[in-house]
């Protein structure tokens, strides 16, 4: 059993006293190889293979660039060993001037990594689940139906649960949908006619969901004619497609909705048009943004109302009615602009303003509205006032979010895993959210999301290995059932089970993303994450700090996502900062515990800096939030024991903001220098 250390010279960029280094770190178990350009040169790797090593430390450039390159290299020489990478290029060679201190830093980092690797265990294989071909879809609106259609084509057998008696959602009520130029019903029928294997259950609601990705067990209650039917399903994935509904603007009392019969909402008008009802009114005023873009009700824009309002207005105008539209901004994005143009050409009157008063007399409504472009308050008499009311999340979302254990955002829509790139996923693996369940969406968007979700499910479920990476493990003997890990887990990958020995936590392996939040917060050390177990971390920190022979040392916990990338970027830009920063990479700042911080200080570090992702930008959802709390608590503790609390700090950055991080590094170092030497044990 020996550990190989391969150090890359990178064409002379990494320039250390390699002989001395070899002497210092070699021993019986550790073999050191110094080579050049190991990312392109295959020769050093076959040499490793010959030397029969069982574990490997690669001291080269950023693993962010080349982790997969090295994996491929190892694969090419059929060497299957666990390995870890130390970054001597972006984190040392590019950023430091002093040769001696650079050497110390490099040595300490390599030595600490060797120590860590010594304790690494081979991974344990867990049994695999064979997922079945069902997928549960909640909501039978356009998104739900479309995703069922797509999944069917891929060989799935979807089950759709609809809480209402009728299927179709909001679109069913629209006489004409943009840009398809057909009625909502027709559009839906085109999808429904393709459904063969899909089971649609109406009047039904989900009552409980247990389990994990690949194997969720769902209970559905169906109520009809006073009978209750309970059904159970086992599904690998669940899709939330609960959609959106129109707000009834009773609360805006001055608009008199609900009190005067000829004040209706836009979708009520759509329904009338859909039923081909005769609209008796001759003068019609449509008010946009009723309740939406309003801080008091719904402060977002409902996106779709401009478009269906214009469709309705055009239809009515074509029937010879006089139509007014009151608006703040007309939001006909992309080619819907043609609707706006058409409406203008047809002579629909646009008034930039909001109806402020409504008085009714003998069926005639007198509206007063400021025409903001003319600076006059106009009194307009109409027969019908149509309110394009806000689109809002259904109230049932709250219950559903609790049953499914996924979060809602501030508007009661379902929260996406990540707002930019992972919009159709939720924090729980295997639970997808599509269509207007995450906010108002156009029909085109719903269709696209449905397709994308089908693709994602196919890839996840078809292919073997539902497990992502090494998950954390909870030792049942040590677990005291305190539920802390259960509560901090950002991906809800821990369940509490009742055993003969009381309540215990257990990892839902398939859902775990290996962030380490449970490890950092477990009071008994029951939760462990291979590579970052309590013991491995402490040993790493101790070796790192003790081996670095320098005046001031700063233990720098860097999250492996944006934090590490920003630090790399400083290297790439060759900005110079102090050698005192000794790097401790962690998967996410969630892994950093109080123990780790105080271990660093007691081992001789003068300061501790945590570098993580931007606010709202943590790749594991909650890590930087937890770390912020932790830093606050540690500061208080330091304060209480009479140590300067400025020694601990946290910064949240992205790659694009590397300069901010650079300034922070310079500033923090200055602060640490100004403080007296921290006496260990004090």
């Amino acid at each position, binding site marked *: 059993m020996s550990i190989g250390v391969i150090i890359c010279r990178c064409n002379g960029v990494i320039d250390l006293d390699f002989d001395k280094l070899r002497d210092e770190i070699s021993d019986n178990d550790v073999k050191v190889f110094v080579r050049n350009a190991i990312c392109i040169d295959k020769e050093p790797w076959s040499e490793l293979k010959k030397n029969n090593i069982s574990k490997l430390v690669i001291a080269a450039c950023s693993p962010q660039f080349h982790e997969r390159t090295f994996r491929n290299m190892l694969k090419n020489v059929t060497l299957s060993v666990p390995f870890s990478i130390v970054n001597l290029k972006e984190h040392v060679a590019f950023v430091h001037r002093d040769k001696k201190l650079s050497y110390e830093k490099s040595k300490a980092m390599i030595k600490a990594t060797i120590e860590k690797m010594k304790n690494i265990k081979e991974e344990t294989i867990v049994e695999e689940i064979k997922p079945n071909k069902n997928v549960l879809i909640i909501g039978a609106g356009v998104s739900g139906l479309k995703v069922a259609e797509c999944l069917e084509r891929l060989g799935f057998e979807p089950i759709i649960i609809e809480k209402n008696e009728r299927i179709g959602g909001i679109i069913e009520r629209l006489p004409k949908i943009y840009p398809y130029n057909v009625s909502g019903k027709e559009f839906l029928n085109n999808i429904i006619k393709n459904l063969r294997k899909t089971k649609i259950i109406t009047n039904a609601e989900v009552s409980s969901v247990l389990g994990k990705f690949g194997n969720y067990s769902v209970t559905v209650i169906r109520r009809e004619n006073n009978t209750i039917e309970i059904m159970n399903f086992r599904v690998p994935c669940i899709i939330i497609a609960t959609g959106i509904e129109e707000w009834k603007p009773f609360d805006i*009392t*001055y608009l008199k909705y609900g009190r005067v019969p000829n004040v209706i909402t836009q979708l009520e008008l759509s329904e009338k048009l859909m039923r081909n009802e005769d609209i008796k009114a001759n003068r019609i005023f449509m008010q946009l943004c009723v309740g939406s873009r309003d801080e*008091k009700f719904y402060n977002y824009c409902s996106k779709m109302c401009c478009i269906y309002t214009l469709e309705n207005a055009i239809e009515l105008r074509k029937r010879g009615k006089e139509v007014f539209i009151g608006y703040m901004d007309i939001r006909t994005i992309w080619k819907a602009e043609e609707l706006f143009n058409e409406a203008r050409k047809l002579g629909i009157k646009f008034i930039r303003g909001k109806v402020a008063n409504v*008085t009714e007399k003998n069926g005639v409504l007198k509206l007063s509205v400021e025409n903001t472009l003319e600076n006059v308050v106009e009194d307009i008499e109409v027969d019908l006032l149509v309110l394009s009311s806000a689109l809002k999340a259904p109230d049932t979302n709250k219950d559903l979010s609790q049953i499914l254990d996924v979060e809602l955002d501030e508007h009661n829509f379902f929260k996406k895993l990540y707002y930019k790139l992972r919009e159709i996923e939720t924090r729980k693996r295997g639970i997808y959210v599509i269509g207007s369940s995450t906010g108002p969406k156009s029909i085109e968007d719903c269709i696209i999301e449905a397709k994308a979700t089908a693709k994602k499910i196919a890839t996840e479920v078809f292919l073997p290995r539902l497990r992502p990476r090494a998950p954390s493990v909870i030792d049942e003997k040590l677990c005291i059932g305190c539920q802390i890990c259960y509560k901090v887990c950002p991906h809800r990958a821990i369940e509490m089970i009742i055993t003969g020995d009381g309540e215990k936590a257990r990892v839902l392996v398939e859902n775990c993303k290996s962030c380490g939040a449970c490890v950092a917060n477990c009071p008994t050390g029951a939760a462990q994450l291979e590579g970052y177990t309590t013991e491995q971390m402490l040993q790493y920190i101790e070796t790192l700090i003790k081996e670095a022979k320098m005046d001031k040392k700063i233990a720098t916990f860097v999250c492996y996502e944006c934090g590490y990338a920003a630090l790399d970027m400083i290297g790439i830009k060759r900005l110079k900062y102090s050698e005192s920063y000794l790097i401790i990479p962690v998967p996410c700042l969630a892994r950093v515990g109080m123990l780790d911080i105080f271990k660093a200080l007691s081992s001789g570090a003068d300061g501790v800096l945590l570098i993580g992702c931007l606010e709202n930008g943590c790749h594991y959802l909650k890590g930087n939030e937890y770390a912020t709390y932790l830093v606050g608590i540690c500061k208080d503790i330091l304060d209480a024991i009479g140590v300067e609390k400025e020694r601990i700090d946290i910064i949240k950055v992205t790659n694009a903001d590397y300069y901010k991080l650079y300034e922070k590094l310079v500033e923090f170092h200055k602060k640490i220098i100004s403080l007296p030497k921290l006496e260990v044990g004090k």
Partner: protein
Amino acid sequence: MKLGLYPGCSLEGLENSYLVSLVKSFEALGINLEEIKDWNCCGATAIPSINVEFSYLLVARNLALAENSGLNIVITPCSECYNRLAYVNYKIKNDEAFKNRINNYLKEIGLRYDGNVEVKHPVDFLVKSFGIDKIKQKVKKPINKRVASYYGCLFVRPREISIESAENPRTMDQIVEAIGGKPVNYGFKTKCCGASIIITRSDAALKLIRNILKSCKDNGAELIVTSCPLCHSNLDMQQEIVVKTFNEDIKIPVLYFTQLLGLSLGLNEKDLALDKNLTYEMIKL
């Protein structure tokens, strides 16, 4: 629970009848009020126009005095005063920075306010805290009239301090119902009467008063009740001028809701200072 009273300048002055009838009718209901000692003017809309910061302090002083004397609730009959007191109270309770700023000033005069006082309008107090049913039980002489309740602006707006819906309030109508009257529904319940500009722009204000009176009259009201001395003085005192200016028959008696309440509770007109109303002569009960 100690109930305080903040009368305000108007109730000390021209509109003393409100104070008299309030105290009397509350007594009849078994509610005793303790006046805040050495209270000062709330600043109304005038002082905020001169200096916003100073206007907060005027209010804060009153609240601090109330807190000092252990009052839990301060009944503020004047809507203008209610608006100022309740708003500043709301800000102090919800904005820590604001609270500190105010207390820094108050320190200079040896006071401090921690936000333990609740400011309530009597209408709100009767309906929500005291209870409509309790009033019903005490009614001796039901008022069998069509009554238009005029709420005015300042105790339904702004939103932070609003007692109920600013567009269609019901509380005063509930009281009217409880004492046997028939509430009249009309469109100008919370439209402004122009009290704050009656002096500086009386021409405009008179127009507003006229609209309110006309709407009440058109909807068949026999009486108007108000809950604010400024609204009252506008609708009552200025009524004759309005009638003359617009040359319309929109005469209608205007009472304080406390006066009407007192009458139903069996108090006599003199006790309720009913005769001080300028429209007293029109009142036929």
